[in-house]
């Protein structure tokens, strides 16, 4: 019905012209005093013809309209079959669409090239920077002083930021490789913990590690990244005390600290991008990206991540390792 009204509206000029002609004809016939039948009969035929013609036109316009509506739901690349050209306007509009499509394709191509270039460069950069880091780390291991430990700790932080760049670039990119299989969770967590050994020891923070004895189906690198971020936060916001790592049922890795905690109003938003909260704002290094990446990685892996905290007494991060949403490919 809506279509019919619109049809009448768009064709109002033709319909108006038709009525004008009709009235003019009737008028001139009347003025010539032609016999009534001689007028009514051809006029009736004429009207019938017009109605038939209009009906066919309505049907065809509706068909074309439906087809165009269908095209609207497609992306630019997929639009290649246009309805047949019937008017000059059709032709012009279709020419414009073709131009826009080409332009968009070119733009997309260029963006993809630039993106690939950028990815290439950053990946190279990350590998470049890892060599001096490796060199410094090896040399620092031959040292044994408060100074070397402080430097080693900072170096570890640099390393972590480098990993974050890589994760940020790779997450959701098409070239990301996931190696989903069964891993020993202890292996993953322990290797992350080892990275932080200098920091734990230097700052005299106790680690309470309960063997996890759990196999998880996950991607080792990505899960390691998440655990690393969480542990790094725990260390950052704990001045003295204990960080404990344990398993909770069902299948949840639990990282608990006795740090400053997170304010209740910040808690719901700590996984948002760029959100730093009170703790982050007082610590200028916070970028608000780490936990956001964790959340997205967990989503991709089919894991969950949740925070619970009481300001002043500590924070618990729970990583649910079940594969509820994951479809194995």
């Amino acid at each position, binding site marked *: 019905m809506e279509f019919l009204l619109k049809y009448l509206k768009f064709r109002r000029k033709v319909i108006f012209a038709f009525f004008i002609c009709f009235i003019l004809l009737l008028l001139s016939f009347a003025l010539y005093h032609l016999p009534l039948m001689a007028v009514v009969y051809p006029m009736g035929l004429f009207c019938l013809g017009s109605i038939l013609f209009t009906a066919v036109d309505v049907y065809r316009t509706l068909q074309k309209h439906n087809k165009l509506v269908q095209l609207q739901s497609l992306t630019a690349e997929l639009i290649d079959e246009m309805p047949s050209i019937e008017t000059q306007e059709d032709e012009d509009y279709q020419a414009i669409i073709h131009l826009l499509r080409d332009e968009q394709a070119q733009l997309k191509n260029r963006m993809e090239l630039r993106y690939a270039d950028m990815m290439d460069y950053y990946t190279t950069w990350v590998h470049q920077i*890892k060599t001096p880091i490796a060199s410094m780390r090896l*040399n620092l291991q*031959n040292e*044994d*002083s408060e100074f070397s*430990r402080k430097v080693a700790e900072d170096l570890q932080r640099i390393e972590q930021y480098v990993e974050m760049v890589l994760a940020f670039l790779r997450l959701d990119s098409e070239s990301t490789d996931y190696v989903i299989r069964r891993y020993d969770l202890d292996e993953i967590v322990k290797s992350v913990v080892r990275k932080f*050994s200098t920091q734990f*020891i230097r700052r*005299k923070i*106790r680690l309470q590690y309960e063997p996890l004895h759990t196999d998880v189906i996950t991607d080792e690198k990505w899960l390691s990244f998440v655990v690393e971020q969480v542990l790094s936060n725990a260390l950052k916001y704990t001045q003295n005390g204990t960080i404990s790592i344990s398993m909770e049922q069902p299948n949840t890795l639990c990282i608990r600290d006795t740090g400053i905690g997170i304010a209740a109003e910040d808690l719901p938003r700590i996984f948002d991008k760029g959100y730093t909260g009170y703790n982050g704002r007082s610590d200028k290094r916070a970028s608000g990206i780490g936990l956001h990446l964790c959340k997205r990685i967990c989503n991709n892996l089919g894991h969950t991540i949740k925070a619970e905290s009481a300001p002043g007494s500590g924070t618990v991060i729970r990583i649910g390792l079940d594969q509820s949403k994951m479809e194995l490919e």
Partner: protein
Amino acid sequence: MKYRILIVEDDRGIAEAIEKQLAMWELEARCVWDFRAVMNEFSAFDPHLVLLDISLPLYNGYHWCNEIRRISKVPIIFISSASDNMNIVMAINMGGDDFIAKPFDQSVLMAKIQAMLRRSYDFGTVSPIFEHRGAILNTGDNTLTYNNSKIELSKNEYRILLALMESQGKVVSREKLMERLWETDSFIDDNTLTVNVNRLRKKLENAGLKDFITTKFGVGYLVG
């Protein structure tokens, strides 16, 4: 006889740090500096194991791995910062035996080298000899030999003694010792270290090695 290890790594800092560590473990190491003549160096040195970086000047590590594989079955361990799965698969397919991602810990590298040598060659022990006052630390089976008797050591005790005997005559800080224990997943704290050291001391004392470990207050411990 000493095992010979060839280091093909273009970053001097890393190559030299590895060389130093290998020397400490009584392994003979040589670094390649002329990356056009890796094969000459290889033939001349005839190593028992090759450490190979992937990104090198001129040709990459895969190329040299291929070249080496043409003439030798020597174990090859790749060391690279490009630790994507693709690279690891590639390295192993090209004939590499293991892959270590940079940045790595010295202890990890040493453990992998030792394991590889143990598997590949069966002559003699790979282990270096750490000796003090006639007591010999056996790196193969976590024991200490003194006066023809073997003293069994726990994992932590062994690691502590190893760290101390590796740098004989130098004070090893408590932090360093703890770090060494953390490397093998003993996430101990200060108090536990004290307990471990005291227990070790008692063991040594019972075997006739009184004051084998000297305490430097506020710093750490010393052997020698």
